[in-house]
Each structure stands twice: as C-alpha cells, then as structure tokens.
C-alpha cells in the first residue's frame, strides 16, 4: 500500500508514491536521485544523512518519507547558489581542508549550517559541541572546526568572503 508524499525539495515541488516504511534518506537517494546525502550507520549516531526539514537539521535516517509530507527539505545539493557559487560553509570546508574522504562532509555542512543559524558567532567549544551529532573518521575534526569558524566569520560579516573558487592557492 503506497502513500503519496508531496514535498518541496531544494526549492522544487515534487510528488511521489512511496511505501510507508521508506526512510527519508532512501527516498532522497533512491527515489529523488540525490545521492549527496549518505548513510553511515543505522542508528542515528553518525549524522552523514543530515538534511534540513523546514530549516532544522534532521538525520534523515530517523524519519520516514511519509513524515516529510508537506514539508520543505533541503539537501547538500541545494546549498550552492544556482550559478554554482558555493555556500560559504562549502567554500570554507574547501579552503580549510575540512574534508578528506568526503563521505561525512555533506552531513557536517548541513549540521553546521543549522548551528550557525542558531549561533552566528560560535567559539571553538560551541562548534565542537554543536557538531557532536556527526562523526568524521578522517580529519580528527581539527579542520572541520576551523572551517565552521571561518564560515561563521564570512556569514556574520566579520570577515570578507575569500575569492571564490580560488584554486590553485599556492604559497606557504
């Protein structure tokens, strides 16, 4: 018995018929084809599947797709501007080497975006606490914290944005 879900996904309306037990993360990946949202555990520890539902960071493995009916969802694919300009958090992860294998990264960026909306000028401790729902196995978190701090400065206007797509950036 399939159910109809109607969502706004990255600014575009869509409707699908889904099984009631289909997890939101599988809806996003397998039905909508947005594979930037990853699955890293089955128990809501790792945060790789973090998306925004009505502006709030949510682990999309903890919701059924049918629970998202009528809601607004944003995934990592919806973060950059239409012209491809990276969101300041995406840019900061690039600039500060905030990712290695990249698997946890979309979840961290979505969690960080919500964190910075709640607290536009967090100190390092607040960033670390704010991201404790997400796991990274590569970076040791050092550069993730730096990335979020750098993004905060750009987003709250205390620092000018660096030149976009600044690759290569040479010189030590």
């Amino acid at each position, binding site marked *: 018995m399939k159910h109809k879900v109607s969502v706004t996904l990255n600014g575009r309306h869509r409707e699908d018929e889904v099984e009631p037990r289909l997890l939101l993360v599988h809806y996003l990946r397998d039905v909508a084809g947005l594979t930037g949202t990853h699955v890293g555990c089955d128990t809501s520890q790792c945060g790789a599947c973090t998306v925004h539902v009505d502006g709030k960071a949510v682990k999309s493995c903890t919701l059924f797709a049918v629970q998202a009916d009528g809601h607004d969802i944003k995934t990592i694919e919806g973060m950059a501007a239409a012209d491809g300009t990276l969101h300041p958090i995406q840019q900061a992860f690039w600039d500060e080497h905030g990712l290695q*294998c990249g698997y946890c990264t979309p979840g961290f960026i979505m969690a960080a975006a919500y964190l910075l909306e709640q607290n536009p000028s967090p100190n390092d401790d607040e960033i670390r606490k704010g991201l404790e729902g997400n796991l990274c*196995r590569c970076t040791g978190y050092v550069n993730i914290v730096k990335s979020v701090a750098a993004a905060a400065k750009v987003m709250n206007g205390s620092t000018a944005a660096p030149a976009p797509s600044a690759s290569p950036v040479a010189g030590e």
Partner: protein
Amino acid sequence: MAITTMVGARIHRREDPRLVRGHGRYADDFVRPHTAYMAVVRSPHAHARIRSIDPGDAMKAPGVEAVLTAADYKKVIAGAMPVAPAFVAEKKQTPERFPIAEGESCYQGEPVAVVIADTKYHAADAAELVVVDWEPLPAVMDLEKALEDGSPTAHDGAPDNVGWDLTYSADADAAFAEADVVVKQRILQQRLAPTPMEPRGVLAEWHDADQTMTMWVSSQNPHFIRLFIGGALGIPENRFRVISPDVGGGFGSKISPYPEDYLVPATSKLLGRPIKWIETRTENLQNATHGRGQVFDVEIAGKRDGQLLGLKITQYLDIGAYMGTFSAFQACACLLPGAYVWKQVASRTVGILTNKVPTDPYRGAGRPEATHLVERMVDMFCAEIGMDPAAVRRKNFITEFPHTSPFALVYDSGNYDGSLSKALELVGYEQFRRDQEAARASGKYLGIGISTWIEICGFGPSAGTAPATGGLALTESAHVRVFPTGSVNVYVGTHSHGQGHDTTFPQIVADALGVPYDAVELRHGDTAEGPAFGYGTYGSRSLAVGGMAVLKASQKIHEKAKKIAAHMFEAAEEDIVNDQGHFYVKGSPENRKAFGEVAFAAYGAGLPEGMELGLEAVAYFDPPNFVWPFGAHICVVEVDPETGGVEMLRYVAVDDCGNVINPMIVEGQIQGGIVQGIAQALFEEVVYAEDGTLRTGTLLDYSVPTANEIPTLTLDRTVTPTPTNELGVKGIGEAGTIAASAAVINAICDALAPLGIQHVDMPASPDRLWKQIQEAKA
C-alpha cells in the same frame, strides 16, 4: 627540470568542489538497470555446525528471486580466499576459507546464505525467513585459554589454535646479563574496528553476451580485487573491470578481498542481472576486519645511568577465525627497536586462531603496536631508575644514518633529537615540570607523555615484499598521457580515499613537465584505465612509491618533448629550456613554443628521424629501500582521581616525513591519524561476550570520538629528506596513529605516578582508571 613552483605549495584540493556539493560517487551511488539486491544471512553463533539451511518461506516472500548457499557458489567460485605467506614460521596453520560457510561457521557474522530480491527492503525482510539448523560448538574467545592443552579449537578437528609461531631472534641474554635494571610488563592492544564512515559495498554486472564483468567496489586497491576475484571466478583480467570510485575511508579495512566481493559478482553471473549489496554499519562492525587484538609480554633491560641494553618480547596476536589476506603483516617485530640503539632485541610472535572476525591491517598495522610497546617500556624504565624520559631518549637515540637495526633493516635518514627538541620547546617542557610539581602539591594529577616514534613504510622493495605477499612485488605504476593540445592525464595504480592524490600527484607532474598545474588531471580507481597493474594505497606508500612512478613517467615524457622542441628550433637539446609550459632556446626566451605546440608536433609529421610518434609513457618504480619517517609527540593530561576522567590539555606533534609536496594535506593526514591514536588510547574497544556475541555492534556501543572529545592539536615539522627516492619523501598517512597512543598513555601514567601506578592499559576509560586509582589508594 623547470624551476619548482608547485611542489611544496599549500594547494587546495581538487577533489573538494564536487565533494562539498554532494557530487561524490561512492559505491552505493551507482545504479544499473534491472539491479537486484543482496542481503546476507549470517551466523548468530561464534562457532557452530550447519546441519541444514531451509529457504523455507524466504522464497515465497515478496520480490525474492533466489536464496543461495555454498552449494550454489561452489559452481562458480574456485579455490580458497587468499592468504599472503608473510614469513616462514616454525609452525603455521592456515584454515582454508571459502567465501560462504558450508558445514561449519567460525565467527558471528560469517555468511551462510544470501537472499536476492528486487529491493533492498525485500531482501532484508526475506533474509529473516531463512531457517538454518545450527548445532552450536564450543567457542574460543580468550587468547590465553586458546593456548592451553585441551582447549576447544576454533575450527572443528584442528590440532590446536596456533596460527603461527615464529621467533625472529631468540637471544638477548647477553644484554640482560649486563643490566642493572630489568622491568617486565604485560601490555594489551585492544581489538579495534577501523570504521570508515562509508561501509563496504559492491555492485557487479555480468555481461553474458561478451563474457565481461564490471564491478564497483569500495576498495583501497581495485587491481588486487580484480586479480583475486577474477581468478576465483575464472574471468581473465582483460574482461574484468573493477571500479573503486570515491571511497569513504578505508584505514586498512578495504585492502583484502571479502566474502561479499566474491558473492556479489558470482551472483550476477549466476542470475544474469546486476547485483548490489551495501553493508549496514552493524555488518561492518561485525564483519569488516578488525585491527590490533594483541597481548605483549615485554622485558626491558638497562643501566642506572639511563643506557638501554635489551628488549625481550612475545607477541600474542588474535588472528580471528581465518587468517586475513595480510593479517600476518601485523607481526611487528621489525619495528620494536624504535628510535634507539640496543645491544640485543629478542622477539617472538604467536598468532592465535579464535572464533572472532579476522584481524588484518588497520592504520599502522603492527607499527602503532611496536611504538606503543617500546615507548611505554622506555618510560617504565625511566620511572624505575628515576631519570627524565626526555633525557633517557636523547641518550639512546640512533644518531648515525643509514643505521642497520637488529633485524637487519636499514633506517634511511633521521634526526630524532631534532624533532624531540622542537616538541619539548613547543610544549614548554621545563615549565611544565615545575607546574606539575606545584599541581601535585595541591592534589592535582597532571602528566606529560612523550612518544618519539619511528615508522617503516613505503612498501616496498620488491626483494622484501614479493616473497611476503606470495609473488607480488609492491612496486607502483603510472601512465602519463599528453594529448595533442597539451593537456595531461595521469593514471596511477595507487588509490585515493581521502589522501588528496588528485592534488598532490599533479603538483609533481606540473613541475616535472613544466606545464601549468591546471593542465594535469589525475585518474585512479578504474582497472580499465592506465597501467596493467597497480598495488593500491595502504602502508603510507602512495607518495614514496607511487609518486615516484609518476615522476619517472613524467621525466620520460619531458625528455622526449625536449628532443622534439630541439628539433623544432633546430637547436641542440642541451640548449632547450622548459619554463612553465614553454620551450625556448637558452638566451632567446622571447621566441618560444608552448608545451601544447610540442605535444601537437609529437602526433604529427616531421619528428626527428627515427622517433616514434606520440607523447605518453608508463613507468614502474621499485624503491631500493623502505622509508623511515619519525617524530616526537607530546601529550599533556589531567586525570580526575574522583571520576577517572582524562582531560587532554595539550597535544604537540613534530613530525618529519622528508620533503613535503603539499603541507596542507600532510597536516590533515597527521591530524586525522593522531585522533585515531587518541581514540585507541581513551575510547575505542571491540568487545565480544564470552559466548562470542559482539557487544559493540553499533556506533552507539563502539565509541568513535566526536569533535567534542578531541583537543586542539599543535603541529610542526622538521625536514630530513630520504636518500631512498628522488623526491626525498617519506610516508605520512599512518604517522599520527602510530605515535599518539603512547604519548597519551605515557601522560596518564606520568600523572598517576604519585599513586604508584606504573602502567595503564587501553582504552584508558574512566571506569578502568577509576578502578586502578582505587586499588592504588587502598
């Protein structure tokens, strides 16, 4: 060669723009039409006989196409899973392993049947309906009990549980006879789960019409997978394509071929449709190979003036139920001497079969264990003779290079005192000791721990590695292609799963060819492209071995391009200058030809007489020796005696990996590595119950640290190039993990020294420390 501009530069990673947008391509992101999904029925027992398997209701469940068991797979999979010989032991027992259990299963999680269905949900549902008639057998879970006479055996009918017993060098008696002081300790290395954030996954598609297989797999070494799986399925390499696209971390757990790596393509061949299997996290914690899992009995001997004399070590290594492809490479004797001069080192390793998932390399593989052991013992020796750990290290450091170790390995280069001095200065060692004294007077337990680590990596010379792997020399390959208008593709046999090769290797090529960095693209992870064979990425080998193959191939091209340019200018070859993508004759820089013009000429008419057309080259690099990075890590902690909690106050790391191609990437590798080492020291442990049930089967129970548990790290470096390769580079991927656990535990032991606590095992969790503190106070 052109003036170096890219090598050494902090260049932002090329792979990032697509990864931060969510446009990575991991195994589960690939979709093929008409794919069926596989779920695996696994043994719930540590050890049991399989009386029968009844597909029962599973075949009737919605969407189910097949339920398959060992009998089905015996028709398409030949032989046993591979085990590298590693060494010749006095005694050795290697249980044969077929990818799916038939009569007996030997660890919880071992595959016994698979269910194929139209969706992953249907496959998972139906897997629950397969009925296996089990006869539980006694399980071997404890290393010491496993060696007792009359112990049950991990495999029914086996003579005992000894997987190997090997003495590298038996004699340290002369050194011990000279000693004033001998300290003994048993040191545990708990089992760890590598836990890459992307679990394993396989998608395979058999094309019956042309008898070819395509397989997408989350792997650190697609060429190895092709070799092993193709061999077992009887598909030659030219008709078996393995693609390891973006891989979400490996840490050693994605080197060896796994049962599912055989079962998925075999099923595709059997059923004639694409098959996908994606591991759940619980399956990952239960079935991906674990690391460490060892117990060491150690004795250290020295003089009261601080001189180190001898070590005696026996390693007991928990192999698990089957020998992993590279599990014997965890026998870490070769690195036990560490950074010090010894008179003698005696070492024996005993591998023990148990009813647990196999252990295999996990970041560092043998080297973190060796470092932890020697650094811990040096500190215990210092405590015994009442000398400062920094002073004793300095007194005993190897200072002359090349240095031949007691195991006949040749350390290439080093400056151990240099990195230690820098680290001591950064941490403010003298001041800390004064602060510590004051803190102790006020009842606070502050401690500082030093780890002057060394590492063997860059595997590795064919003469050393080919006998150990069973014939494969761990060399490395690169294929560089220059297209007619001058853009460049580089294909490598290494595999990047977070290490940033897409950025680092083009930096080398840009300099070697004298072309703009942006003109160079790196490709890897697809066996249909590039050199015939590659060896993958593990053991901190990619730059020191693969980077050199890239350099060699680039040099071949540069030589040819220069000849073509000389011909075009009608000048002598030695007068040709190549600067940032332009050739000119010395003294006439205004009259120049772009690299692209020379490349175009290479595919046209009018080449020098006798010159073959084209501008591409393949190179293989077989290093003459290993490389030996080193460094000094210092950790400062405060232990709360009321709770057993450890607060990390400072962490300073000064590392030396020779010349640095991209400092940003090197620092990232060190940071991540350190945190995995800290995680072992304080948090992580795979726990099995006595009956063989895995207690740490989710990320709720297996405690990978979050950002909130990790301190800020202070990094610096020294630069001591290796003479082993032209780039002067050593590996850095595992350094942090190798160094960190000893620094943390030494700091905790230093903090608790006033209570008479000499040694603390890992993980130094609050409950373990609290108990030890209570016992010490009682």
